[in-house]
Structures are given as C-alpha cells and as structure tokens.
C-alpha cells in the first residue's frame, strides 16, 4: 500500500510531464474528439460537449497548464502520504521492477530515510504546483514552450523520487542522472540569455563529474562485494583505506550536487536562471536529494563511519557555511543570493552531519542520532523556507521584471501579502526564535556543545571553533536577510518597474507561498511533530533514538535531557503574545495619542529621493571591509569632471563587482589546462599524410618490438 503511494507519486509526476507534451497536440485531440463523437453519438452528450469545450482554442492551454500542475500536485500529495506512512509505520519495504540489466532488475527499497525525503519533496512539490500555473502564464508559447517546461519538470520530480527509492547502484545512478539532466533542461529553459547557457553548461558538466565520482564510489564498494544491490554493498568488507577512498568519492560526488565549497560554483549560476518554481525545487529539494545520497552512502552502505570523515565534513561544512553566507551577502541578484544562501545552509547541514559521524565513531550513538536529527531537521526546514523565498522571488520577478535588489524598494505597500510571506521566509532563514530555522540551529548548537564527552584533543578544540563559526554564520545570515527584505520591500522604490508593481492577482501563487509560510511557522512552534518522525529515521539508520525527547510533554523540546537543555516554543509564543499584547494595550488605550503622519525628516536639505537611500552595496560595505580577503572585489569610482581646470564633478559612477575566489583559482586553470592540452595533442595531427604514415609505421615497429 505504502509502496503503491510512492509509485503513484513517481508515476503522477511522470504523467504530468507527458501531459505537458499535449500542448501542441490540440488539433489531433480535436480530431480524436470528432471521431469519437461520430462513432458513439449516443454516449453521454454532456461529456462530449465538455470535451469540446476544453479543447476550445483559448481555454485549452490554460486548462492544460492547470491539469499538468494538478497532476504534479497530486504527485506531491502522494509523496507526502507515502513518506508519512512509512515514517509512522517504521517499516522497510522492498520491491523489484523488471527493468534495467538482465541480471540486475531495478531494486526498490522504501524505508524511513527515503520516506523522510519523500516528505520534503512532497511538500515542496505541492507548494510548487499551487504556484506554477500562475507563474508559467507569463511565458510566451513561441519562445518558451510549455511542453518543454512541463515535461522536464515532471521528469525532474520523478527522478528525485526515484533516487530515494533506488536500492541498487545502477538504478540509483539512472535516477540520479535523470534528475540532473532534466534539471539541466530546466536551467537552460530560457536559453536566449547567454547567462543561462553558460550556467546550464557548467551545471551539466559538474553534474557529470559528480556522477562519475559517485559511480566510482559505488565501484569501490562493488569491487569488495558481489553485486550492485545496496544489500550486497552493505555487506562489503572494506579496509579503512578503501572505505575512506569510497567516502571521499561519495563526498565529492554528492557534495558537488549539494554545492559545498569549493565545488559549488554551478549553484549560484544555475539556480538563479531557472524559472523560479524550478529554482525553488532545485535549491530547496534537489540539494536535499544529494544530502540523502551522502547519508545513504555513509551511514547505510559504508556502515562503519570514521571520525576523520566527520572532521572532513565538519571543516567543509564550516567553510561552506561561512563562505556561502558571505558570498550571498554581496550578491545584487536576489536569486543568486538565495542560491549562495543554500550553500550556507548545506554547509550547516554538513557540519552537523560531521558531528554526528564523530560521535558515532567515538561510541556515542545517541549523540550521533542527535546530530543526524539536527541535520535532517535543518534539511527539512531549509526546504521549506528556501522554497518559500524562491517562490517569493519568483513573484517579485513576475511583478517587477527584475531581480536586481538594488533596483527595488518599497514593495511592502504594493505587494502587502507577498511581503508578509516573504518576511516569514526571511525570519525563518535568519533562524529567529518561533520559526523553524531556529529549532534546527538550536539543535545544531546542542550537538556541538556535547563535545565534552569526547576524548580526542583535536576534536575537543575543533568542534568549539566550528560552533563559533556556526554562530557567526547565523548572525551573518540575519544581516544578509535584513538587507534582502529591507532593500526589496522597505524604503522607496528605486526603479520605474518597481513603482508600477502591484500585488499578484493569482490566488494559487499566493497559496503556494502561504502553505510554506504556515508550515515554517507551525514547525517553528511545534517542532516535536517533525522531530518524532525524524527520530524514527535515526532509529532505523543508527539503531539509536533520542532519549525522552518528549519527557517534559510534547510542547517541550529536550533533545539530550531536560537538565541539559530545553526549549518550549509554544510557551515562548504565549509569552511573546502576552508581552506584546500588554504593551500594546497599555500604550494604545489613550485615544489622544493616535498617531499622525508627517513628512520624513530630510536633514533640512529638502526632498528625499530614492537615491539617497542606502543601497545594497552600501549596506554591505562594512562587511566588505571586514572580510575583504574573502572576495575578489573590483571597486571603481569614475568621475566625470567639468568646469574650469576640470575641477567640478559632473557625475560620479560607482562600479562594484564581487567575485568568487574559486573561479579564477580552481576552474579557470582547469579550463586553460584542457585547452592547452588540446592544443598540444592537436599537434600530432599535422595534416601531412607522410607524417600519418610515419605514425602507422612507428606504431607497428614499436608494437612488434614490444611483443618480441
């Protein structure tokens, strides 16, 4: 039954893609309808007229779009149901599909870990399918055919779900690559922009490299076992060296997809250029699938984790978290910023996962479970709020036709509903209390604080440092999202487009956002709901669950023990409401103090203009000063002079570009290297036939000499 739900989810998303292909098939459908009408004139007239109605030229595309997203949404709901039921039932369901290699059918396994990620995908996909129909309306059919979008969206979602179901290396890779390739087409959807093409190429290239690393990782395992099924791989007996090699390969492969520094460069390029609901899925969900892969590979297939791996994850995670948020801060493009922020969040997840490994190998499975729980919870939360923010960015883009934060402003009055929802996303991602982001970060801190139980001096000093970095990351994230919300929604609008923007009319789009926002808040207040589910994952994967996670009642969160730490968000909420209500009531009771609107104070110069406001780059200038080694900063001020002796300034232009270090230091050399190599190798092909004959001759002589 549960498996049926899971399969339905996959198939529905697949069919939604296929249905999308019908976009250009109105004529055949019409003809079919005519034929059908002629053949069975007696069968339900109403049905036929309804058919004909649907096929009417104007209505057909709209209806089809709705139908496609309806199927997608249904797939999301089925995924949620499947995930929930397996998490609650705590079962492990296996199955085989007779596709694939003759001696290796596709093995399917649906357990709590898969179920949890099913849940994430399901929620995200449901929200996206509410949002989608309104969003894709703005695409012109001739330039951006809906069929392409729908097909690859369906395949993308199906691919992600299949990755979670896969129980053998071959099937896993097929699903994995299906996901990559489908999303590649989505990234390149608006391919008339060079940026999209470049991003898509980079993305596919890195996906390919990553996939090769993963295959190799499986290959290492497979060469120590007798098959490619995960069952066989689990039983592989590896030496520590080989296990570490496998781990490094998996880390490279999955890390590339997840976007950890320094293999993250595709992410901030690819996510922003895809349609927003796809960016949401990519950033919010696909990265989680990579995470799933890593967890599956390390905790499930390799089994015996080593603390050294944990240290590697911890360090990489710390670097990614800090790097991600610092780069995010400098981005003027909203979606790039969100993409970099995904790097940050993935970094946090990796950090905690690393802690979990360290505790696991040091004989503290309970703490390992805590770490895993924190990581999974953060993954879940990140999926919620990152989706929310990307969808919000989509609405903003839809209404203002731009993504440059420096060109926005004042949208809070023009788009009140969107602004509230977006604010909730910003607060969640800044990990403010009462919202879900805070809970997982709190758990992450709690995990790090358990360092006392370890014996190893290196770890004992390393973990606090990373905890400090985590604290810094959280603070920087808050700063970053203050900037985002402040620049976009507050103040005065900085551009013409923004001035004319208005609230989105499509209810579905807002409903998609609202769903996510409500969940962000709900799981911020009642994290116990989701934590008890994740506990089952930890139980199945590590064989350990958290102790008395509900000893103080279900309102409380006490992951280790009530004496060590506890958090009761509902009580905090009540307290906050009381405090705010009391002060509000106390101050507003006097009717004489009704407020009055007046001009904003302009220092007496007269006439505030939007240009006087702090801009995005101005806001982040102190950070640029403080962390200036982190970026490659290209900052120029150009002055046009005029007047006598060119003494007066006519105009000033300020130019700022901030770049990622990894590009010129890692990728550029590789690219140049390949080109140079090609040039050198190209010399063998001189174009002269006598040279070619010489090669043939020399090869023959050489070979004869070799064998004799």
């Amino acid at each position: 039954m549960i498996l049926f739900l899971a399969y339905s989810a996959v198939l529905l998303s697949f069919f939604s893609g296929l249905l999308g292909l019908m976009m250009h098939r109105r004529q055949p459908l019409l003809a079919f309808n005519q034929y059908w009408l002629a053949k069975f004139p007696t069968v339900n007239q109403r049905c036929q007229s309804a058919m004909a109605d649907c096929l009417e030229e104007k209505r057909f595309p709209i209806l089809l779009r709705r139908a496609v997203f309806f199927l997608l949404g249904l797939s999301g709901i089925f995924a949620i149901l499947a995930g929930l039921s397996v998490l609650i039932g705590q079962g492990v369901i296996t199955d085989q599909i007779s596709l694939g290699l003759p001696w290796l059918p596709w093995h399917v396994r649906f357990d709590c870990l898969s179920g949890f990620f099913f849940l994430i995908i399901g929620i995200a996909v449901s929200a996206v399918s509410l949002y989608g129909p309104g969003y894709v309306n703005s695409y012109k059919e001739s330039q951006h055919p809906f069929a392409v979008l729908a097909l690859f969206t369906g395949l993308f979602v199906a691919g992600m779900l299949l990755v979670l179901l896969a129980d053998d290396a071959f099937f896993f890779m097929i699903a994995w690559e299906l996901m990559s390739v489908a999303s590649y087409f989505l990234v390149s959807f608006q391919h008339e922009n060079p940026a999209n093409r470049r991003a898509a190429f980079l993305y596919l290239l890195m996906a390919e490299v990553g996939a090769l690393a993963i295959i190799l990782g499986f290959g290492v395992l497979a060469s120590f076992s007798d098959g490619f099924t995960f069952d066989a791989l689990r039983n592989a007996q590896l030496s520590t060296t080989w296990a570490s090699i496998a781990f490094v390969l998996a880390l490279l492969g999955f890390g590339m997809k997840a976007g950890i520094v320094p293999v993250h460069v595709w992410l901030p390029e690819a996510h922003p250029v895809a349609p927003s609901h796809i960016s949401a899925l990519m950033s919010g969900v696909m990265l989680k699938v990579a995470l799933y892969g890593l967890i599956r590979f390390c905790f499930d297939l390799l089994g015996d984790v080593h603390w050294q791996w944990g240290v590697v994850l911890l360090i990489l995670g710390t670097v990614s978290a800090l790097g991600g948020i610092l780069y995010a801060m400098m981005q003027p493009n909203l979606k790039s910023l969100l993409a970099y922020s995904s790097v940050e969040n993935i970094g946090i997840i990796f950090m905690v996962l690393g802690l979990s490994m360290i505790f696991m190998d040091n004989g503290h499975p309970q703490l390992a479970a805590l770490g895993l729980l924190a990581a999974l919870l953060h993954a879940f939360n990140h999926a919620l709020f990152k989706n929310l923010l990307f969808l919000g960015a989509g609405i903003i883009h839809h209404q203002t036709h731009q993504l440059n934060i420096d060109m926005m402003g004042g949208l809070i009055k023009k788009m009140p509903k969107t602004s509230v929802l977006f604010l909730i996303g910003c607060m969640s991602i800044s990990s403010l209390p009462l919202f879900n982001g805070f809970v997982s970060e709190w758990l992450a801190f709690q995990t790090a604080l358990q360092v006392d139980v370890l014996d190893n001096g290196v770890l004992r000093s390393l973990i606090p440092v990373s905890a400090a970095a985590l604290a810094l990351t959280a603070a920087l994230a808050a700063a970053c999202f203050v900037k985002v919300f402040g620049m976009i929604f507050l103040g005065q609008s900085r551009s013409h487009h923004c001035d004319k923007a208005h609230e989105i009319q499509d209810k579905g789009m807002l409903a998609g956002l609202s769903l996510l926002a409500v969940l962000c808040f709900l799981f911020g207040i009642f994290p116990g709901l989701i934590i008890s589910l994740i506990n089952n994952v930890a139980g199945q994967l590590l064989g350990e669950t958290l102790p008395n996670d509900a000893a103080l009642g279900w309102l409380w969160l006490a992951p280790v023990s009530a004496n060590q730490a506890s958090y009761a968000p509902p009580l905090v909420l009540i307290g906050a409401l009381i405090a705010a209500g009391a002060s509000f009531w106390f101050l507003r009771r006097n009717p004489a103090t009704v407020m009055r609107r007046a001009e904003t104070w302009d220092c007496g110069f007269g006439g505030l203009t939007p240009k006087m406001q702090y801009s995005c780059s101005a806001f982040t200038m102190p950070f640029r000063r403080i962390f200036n080694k982190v970026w490659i900063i290209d900052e120029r001020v150009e002055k046009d002079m005029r007047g006598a002796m060119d003494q007066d300034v006519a105009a000033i232009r300020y130019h700022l570009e901030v770049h990622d270090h990894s590009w010129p230091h890692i990728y550029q050399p590789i690219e140049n290297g390949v080109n140079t190599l090609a040039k050198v190798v190209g010399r063998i092909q001189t174009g002269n036939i006598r040279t070619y004959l010489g090669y043939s001759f020399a090869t023959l002589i050489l070979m004869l000499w070799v064998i004799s």
Partner: protein
Amino acid sequence: MNIEQLDFYTQAILSMAALVGLTSFLMLGQGRLLRLIFVFAMQGFLLTLTTVLAAYSLNNPHLYISAVLTLALKVIFIPWMLRRQVVQMNMHRDIEALKNNTAVMLGGASLMVFSYYVLHPIVQSSSVVMLNALAVSLSVMLLGMLLMISHRQAIAHVVGFMSIENGLFFAAIVSTNGMPLVVELGVAFDVLVAAVLFGIFFFHIRTSIDSLDVDLLNKLHEVDK
C-alpha cells in the same frame, strides 16, 4: 642448416627472396618516377616467377592462376597505368630530391635486421627458410611503408602501397603456398579496384591542386597555423 644442404627449390626461393628484397631497396632510393615504376614492375615479375616456381615444384595448380593475376596486375597493368600518368603529367623528367637518403637507406637496412629479430620466435615451429622468407617479406612491407614516408609524389605512394602488397603475396606464397583460392581472387580483385581508383584519384588530385605532391594535401589538420 647451410644453404648447400637445401633442395633446389628452397635455394631458388631464397634467391628470389634476396632479389625481391633488393628491388625494395632499389625503390627506396629511387628519385626518378619512371625508374621507380620500372623497378616495381621488376619486383612484380620476380613475384610472378616465385609463384610459378612454387606452383611447379609443389604441384599446386591454383598458384598458376595467382601467377597470372600477378603478372597481369603488377607487371603489366599497374606499371602501365602509372607510367601513363607520369608521362601525362610531364613528370618523367623530374627528380625528387630525397631528404636524408643515406639515413633512409640505413634505416631500411636496420629494418631488415629488425624483421629477422621480430620473426625469430617462429623458428621454433618451422624452418630457417621460412624465417628467411617471412622476414624478407616483412621487410619488403616495411620498406614499402618507408618508401611512402620518404617520397612525396602520389605515384611513389601508389608504388609503395603496391610493393607492400607484393611483400604480402610473397609471404603468402612462400610460407603457405598461397592462400585459399577464394581469398586470392578476392585480394586480386581488391588490388585491381584499388588500382583503378588510384587512377581516378590522380585525376582528381591533379585537378584539385594541380600537382601530385601529397605534401600539398594538408588542409585538414588540428594544428594552429
């Protein structure tokens, strides 16, 4: 085993091998096209003689067919065709300046030694004569390739190509008394068609680059120029 202990047939074959090898060397150092073609025809004739010899002494009638084919193709048709081309192209007065001729000749000599070296393991399973014959044919092959590498005229290339075929035939006749007839016929057919095609190509190349110098055929390459 000394040569005087062998029967007359073997002695003859060995002599033929030596002569065939010699013609290859002659071709290698030859700068004039007409002489090159003549030497090539000589080689073909030696091959025919060898085939007849083998057919006669081994009483193997199908080798006669093969001899006739060789005679027709390698001694008469191809040299005739090439000669005609040379005369038509008015190249019979040209002398191709061969670079490093001495080195090439020395290389050719060492190739001969190399052929013996490579084929040495075969001695265990057969006679020294076979080794000699095979080594000579291998070196004829290699010398043919060397000829192609060192000469720039397309006609010389064809000669080299055909001389490689000669080497092969020699090996086939001496070591195994010829291949099965079907194969022989097939190979002969291929050679015939190849010869015809070469004729066509000379025409095409001439119309295209107005010369038969293969060094001028260098438009397709991967080098930055």
